[in-house]
């Protein structure tokens, strides 16, 4: 593999040429949403100027071209996550909707009173609240796999939660959007399956940043979001054919039906059964372009690039006085570092960094229970993607030193 040419990658992202408050922008918030490569922006323009029309059922050339490109994106996404077939890929609004789809349809049908729903303390609200509410509706038990002080999942605790056979589902993230922790997904799936539980994998952080293979993981469901991998806003749910086929539909309307009478309807095949109404067509085609772009870089190489950055970042951040990092050591995580500072509230960190052109997020990052676990209400978070480079981390650290200088009492 040729060495990573970050400048060549950066050249594909026009927004990186911008300045903020007169400083070159240093974008360190890809975990919230990634910037878009030229090819994605250009794909949108091309669809809208060359052949846009509504998909499916259309018999004229534009409709056929749009349908082929839209379904072509499904094939690309399926290959990207190593799904056995494209029909198992359902497009949704975002990862959140994908997870809700599972909780509302599979969950409603398969979770009953007394059943146990297992999640983890590091879940994003989107993979927690749907299960919490399902548990409340059904009188089911919601149980949490604890996070260790060092930011890892306590697998012994998981084993205990699985031991009595009451657990029906284990919903967990492949990578924490706060700690950066990459979870031992294959192991968790194996334990869950041995106990007869279905697995729901939140891939919102993993899929954009690591090689993910649903067959190697032996997963049942996987949810993720295009906007975190350089695409416009499109969500993805992958599920095993047998599970998807057995599930009732979620949203009702155009496209998801086979046949409608006044008092009776029949549902279309998967994946269409779960795609009601007109989808975001050009956006999904552009997701296909983003997938091609990432495949071109190689997901192994993407991951390695980010590991190098995060290792460098953790080393350099510890130079900043009174700065504390949440989560495990660099080799156990993806390109995310959440931290807090003795001298400054995360809001002030983010605001003062912005004055230097450095974009980081501040808050609980939709993971309040995890922050409660560590007793910090909020953190600042820097995250890295294909276009980041060591200089970005140097700019971050220099800006943090300025925060200390200004706010230390």
């Amino acid at each position, binding site marked *: 593999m040729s060495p990573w040419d970050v400048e060549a990658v950066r050249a594909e992202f026009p927004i990186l040429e911008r300045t903020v408050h007169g400083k070159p922008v240093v974008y360190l918030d890809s975990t919230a949403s990634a910037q878009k490569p030229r090819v994605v922006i250009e794909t949108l323009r091309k669809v809208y100027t060359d052949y846009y029309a509504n998909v499916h059922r259309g018999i004229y050339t534009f409709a056929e071209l749009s349908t082929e490109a839209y379904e072509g994106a499904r094939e690309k996404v399926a290959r990207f996550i190593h799904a056995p077939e494209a029909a198992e890929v359902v497009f949704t609004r975002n990862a959140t909707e994908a997870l809700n789809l599972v909780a509302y349809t599979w969950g409603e049908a398969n979770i009953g009173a007394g059943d146990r729903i297992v999640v983890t303390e590091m879940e994003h609200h989107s993979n927690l609240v749907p299960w919490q509410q399902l548990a409340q509706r059904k009188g089911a038990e919601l149980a949490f796999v604890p996070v260790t002080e060092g930011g890892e999942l306590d697998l012994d605790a998981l084993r205990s939660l699985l031991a009595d056979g009451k657990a029906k589902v284990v919903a967990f993230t492949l990578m924490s959007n706060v700690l950066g922790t990459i979870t031992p997904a294959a192991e968790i799936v194996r334990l869950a399956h041995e106990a007869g539980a279905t697995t729901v994998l939140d891939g919102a952080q993993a899929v954009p940043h690591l090689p993910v293979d649903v067959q190697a993981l032996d997963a049942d469901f996987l949810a993720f979001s295009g906007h975190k991998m350089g695409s416009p806003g499109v969500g993805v749910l992958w599920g095993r054919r047998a599970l998807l086929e057995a599930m009732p539909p979620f949203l009702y309307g155009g496209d998801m039906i086979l046949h409608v009478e006044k008092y009776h309807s029949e549902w279309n095949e998967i994946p269409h059964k779960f795609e009601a109404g007109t989808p975001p067509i050009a956006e999904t085609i552009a997701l296909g372009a983003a997938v091609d772009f990432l495949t071109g870089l190689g997901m192994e190489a993407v991951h390695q690039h980010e590991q190098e950055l995060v290792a460098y970042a953790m080393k350099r951040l510890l130079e900043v006085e009174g700065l504390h990092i949440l989560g495990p050591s660099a080799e156990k995580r993806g390109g995310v570092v959440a931290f807090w500072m003795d001298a400054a*509230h995360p*809001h002030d960190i983010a605001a003062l960094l912005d*004055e230097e052109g450095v974009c980081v997020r501040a*808050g609980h990052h939709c993971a309040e229970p995890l922050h409660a676990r560590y007793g*910090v209400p909020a953190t600042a978070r820097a995250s890295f993607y294909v276009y980041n480079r060591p200089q970005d981390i140097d700019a971050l650290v220099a800006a943090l030193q300025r925060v200390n200088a*200004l706010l230390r009492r």
Partner: protein
Amino acid sequence: MPSDLYREELLDHYRDPQNYGVLPEADIDVRLNNATCGDTIHLTARLDDEGRIAKVMFEGQGCVVSMASASMLTEEVVGKRREEVLAMGLPDIETMLGGIRLSMGRVKCATLALRALQQGLKETEEA
């Protein structure tokens, strides 16, 4: 590069807040927080016989914007009638902070203390 939000005046209020603490025998006693960022405030206040604000104190944790505007508010509202305080809004806070324009992300921080005081005033009314 001197920033609008982090001018010395605000930083002074942040580093050394006015009326920091808890007022004994308060008429108003409100705890409020900003779930998104974890800012918290405990605001206590006393009214005079005519229902005007006599004294306000606060304790809390938060960013420069929320702490400095709490500190400034405890001075700003003394002597005001309840209706006057209830009528206050974001523009008044922006003026109080020195005529800056707050971005959406900071509005909740800047108004935390005001919302706590207003909530307290409404509670005394209802009681």
